[in-house]
């Protein structure tokens, strides 16, 4: 537990702490109040502070010491309760940590209180989401091809994405599908086809007010009437009419009201205030106009119940890292979606690729799951249909089409001897920018080689125990791969896994064994595209005699 004597000892020696006004300890916390004065400050600045019992350790990503002054709300990095938002260095020594934290407070005073510094980085306004009937609501939006103007209002179409648990309460997560303006103009959000087709489940309203709906541009308004000056009266009329019309049949139903504003670089953001039918924050007043009393609708001082909103546009969804744009913008086909192929497809989709088509004739069995991207809860399925769903659930920005299963197993092999048919196949496959052949089918490799494709063809396969991964680029695939497997690699085909019940031995390797190679191969392929390097074939070799090592050998 915290020792108040230690705290007292340390802060009494800090030169810029002019006065310790109070210092006390209850069962868990230490509370105090100090005055700070140093050169640059005209008069002493007082702060309450609170030290949590876990101090000097952090909890929930926050410091376990808080400095509070409610008079400083307008300054940067001051939270609504007046606490200064600081993140300081890690230290487990309580004395050192106290010095670090008080010095951070001093730095904040210099930077933001004295110098009034503006941060270059934009920070979202602070919104505390509300529980309504023990449930949170979230709304996920993306870009649209429409430029909202101040005063625009209309309807929002929503689709329930999933119910879940958020901070140990229920949450309903919605996807914003489209906006319809007051003039009836509809604009769809840039989700992929699958999410666009999601069934419509709810409606809401939007109003674009341009400015932040917040005090000091950072604390979301608490009361509806704070929005009064921003909202056109016609929008209030619309809400009023809607409530009146639905009052009988839909009382207490939650209706989200999207409030839009501009952030940085003309980007827009939405906050959602939750309205309950039967309790809309609208009142009717009468005003004299030309000596006649006319009804005017106004917002009441009802508390705003804010929902959670997130901008999940491509830029933010993939903001933390993608593959290089030459790959993400490419039209890609993955043939063979077993262990390697399903991993490649998933890496591509998680890497931000927008077009990834897949081809495979095979069925997913329960025993495939442990070393591929497939799921157990879907049972026995065609691999392509399951993988399509998995990939689409990973990214709302990728389109996944499925190739006819006969194409690579029958059609292309039967007709590959005919020059004109070959030209036809080549022209179809050349619609892709990159094709990954993960089938390990030597005959298909031979046929694809015959087609002399203009697109990039990349062939991937591994040896037993995932000792090596062989990656070959067109046009040097057939000869390279065959020579490696037939003459150079030490591919152990004696120690295979033989399932009971059917004779179909397969290689032995775990998910980790395979994925470490696949991920490394994708890193190398990404580098080749990024640096426009020669598409040199490569082999990834592993050694696990003492320490596991992986190295790439370029050819």
């Amino acid at each position: 537990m915290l020792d108040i004597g230690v705290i007292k000892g340390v802060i009494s020696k800090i030169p810029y702490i002019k006065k310790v006004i109070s210092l006390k300890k209850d069962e868990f916390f230490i509370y105090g109040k100090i005055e700070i004065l140093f050169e640059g400050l005209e008069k002493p600045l007082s702060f309450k502070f609170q030290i949590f019992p876990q101090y000097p350790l952090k909890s929930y990503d926050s410091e376990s010491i808080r400095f509070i002054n409610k008079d400083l709300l307008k300054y940067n990095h001051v939270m609504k309760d007046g606490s200064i938002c600081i993140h300081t260095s890690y230290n487990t020594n309580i004395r050192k940590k106290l010095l670090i934290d008080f010095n951070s407070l001093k730095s904040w005073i210099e930077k933001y209180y004295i110098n009034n510094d503006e941060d270059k980085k934009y920070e979202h306004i602070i919104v505390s989401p509300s529980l309504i009937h023990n449930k949170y609501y979230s709304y996920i939006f993306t870009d649209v091809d429409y430029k909202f103007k101040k005063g625009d209002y209309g309807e929002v179409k929503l689709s329930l994405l999933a119910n879940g648990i958020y901070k140990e309460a229920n949450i309903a997560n919605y996807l914003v599908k489209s906006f319809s303006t007051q003039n009836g103009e509809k604009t769809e959000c840039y989700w992929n086809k699958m999410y666009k087709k999601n069934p419509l489940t709810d409606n809401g309203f939007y109003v674009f007010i341009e400015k932040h709906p917040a005090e000091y541009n950072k604390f979301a308004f608490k009361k509806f009437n704070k929005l009064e000056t921003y909202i056109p009266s016609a929008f209030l009329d619309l809400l009023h009419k809607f409530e009146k019309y639905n009052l009988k049949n839909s009382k207490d139903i939650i209706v989200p009201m999207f409030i839009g504003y501009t952030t940085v670089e003309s980007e827009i953001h939405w906050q959602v205030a939750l309205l309950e039918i039967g309790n809309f924050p609208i009142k009717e007043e009468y005003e004299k106009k030309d000596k006649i009393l006319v009804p005017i609708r106004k917002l009441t001082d009802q508390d705003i119940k804010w929902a959670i909103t997130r901008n999940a546009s491509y830029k933010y969804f993939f903001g933390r890292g993608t593959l290089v744009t030459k790959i993400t913008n490419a039209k890609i086909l993955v043939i063979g979606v077993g262990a390697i192929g399903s991993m490649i497809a998933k890496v591509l989709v998680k890497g931000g690729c927008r077009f990834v088509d897949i081809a495979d004739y095979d069925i997913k069995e329960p025993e495939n799951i442990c070393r591929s991207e497939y799921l157990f809860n879907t049972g026995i399925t065609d691999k392509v249909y399951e993988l399509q769903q998995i990939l689409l659930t990973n990214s709302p920005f990728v389109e996944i089409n499925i190739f006819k299963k006969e194409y690579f197993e029958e059609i292309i092999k039967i007709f590959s001897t005919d020059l004109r048919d070959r030209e036809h196949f080549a022209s179809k496959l050349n619609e892709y920018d990159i094709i990954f052949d993960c089938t390990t089918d030597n005959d298909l490799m031979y046929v694809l080689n015959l087609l002399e494709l203009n697109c990039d063809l990349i062939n991937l396969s591994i040896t037993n125990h995932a000792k090596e991964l062989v990656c070959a680029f067109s046009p040097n695939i057939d000869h390279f791969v065959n020579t490696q497997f037939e003459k150079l690699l030490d591919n152990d085909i004696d120690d295979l896994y033989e399932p009971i019940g059917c004779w179909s031995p397969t290689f032995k390797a775990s998910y980790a064994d395979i994925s470490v190679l696949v991920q490394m191969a994708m890193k190398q392929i990404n580098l080749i595209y990024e640096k426009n390097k020669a598409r040199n074939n490569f082999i990834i070799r592993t050694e696990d005699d003492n320490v596991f090592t992986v190295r790439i050998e370029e050819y």
Partner: protein
Amino acid sequence: MEETKQAYLQEVLETYRMSHIEDLVNKYKSRRDEVKEVLEEKYTGDIYSPINSGSFAKHTAINSKFDLDIAVPFKRDSFKTIEKMFDDVFGFLNAKYKDKATIRKQKVSIGIEFFADKDGDNISLDIVPGRELNKEQYPDDKNMNLYVNSKYGVIEKKTYIQTNIQAQIDHIKAKENERKIIRLLKIWKTSNSEKYKSFLLELLAIKAFEKESISGNLWEKLKAVMQYIQNNVAKEGFTLKDPGNSNNNVVETLETWERDNLSSKMKIIINHIEKNDDKIKLYFPKNSEFDDNDHSSNGSGYGIKGTTIASSIPPNNQRFGN
């Protein structure tokens, strides 16, 4: 070890000898003679005698991939422009052979690919029409202007290029060592699907022999040539004069990054082979069709390690991952 590689490379060259496909070569020759005859008949008075050119004439051909080239020297006043000459030859050959072959306009030549015969062989010929530079000078200087089909190649803006096919052939005459290395580089190029032009590799090999004292066994010579390419091809100021036209620097047909890639590729190959002799088989494979030592069981011709006995056991070359 060096001796092993030397012996292996000798065997490689042996498997690519044209003599292995004498019957096929005869078919080519007979087609070539036939086309020569029809051209002489059609353009009698407008052309000098067509000459055999290309790798066959230079004795650098390999049996896995080759075609026969015929250079057709037109007289200065046969056509108003060399484009008209090129189009006329294409039109004539197309009319003459369209039912027997696919005729294509290529960069400086017209390709004739005869449909497969009863043995399944496709004979292909490249016809290179050229026009003498000055009236009646061809018999003396052998200089010609070739039409450059603009949709091909890097010299897109030019419509013609000067060359001297005879000088190109003479350039490699009596250079037995160089020829062997050129053939090995062509084996590397074709089996590893490299895009580099044979003519470029040929000039690089000849220049390496001129500039360096290259000796030793076949592997040592090949390695020395590859090291020369590695050290020089990407260098600023490096030139490769076309013996048919000294103004034509053939290395300029490569972009800077392609020169860098060729240099690094040579380095990679040398390193791999120096570390592991077996890797020589990857870069310079034997032509399995004519390899007496190829005992592979499946006829794929790659000498698979071990043999496949029971039909239900995966072959040694089994790839995994799907």
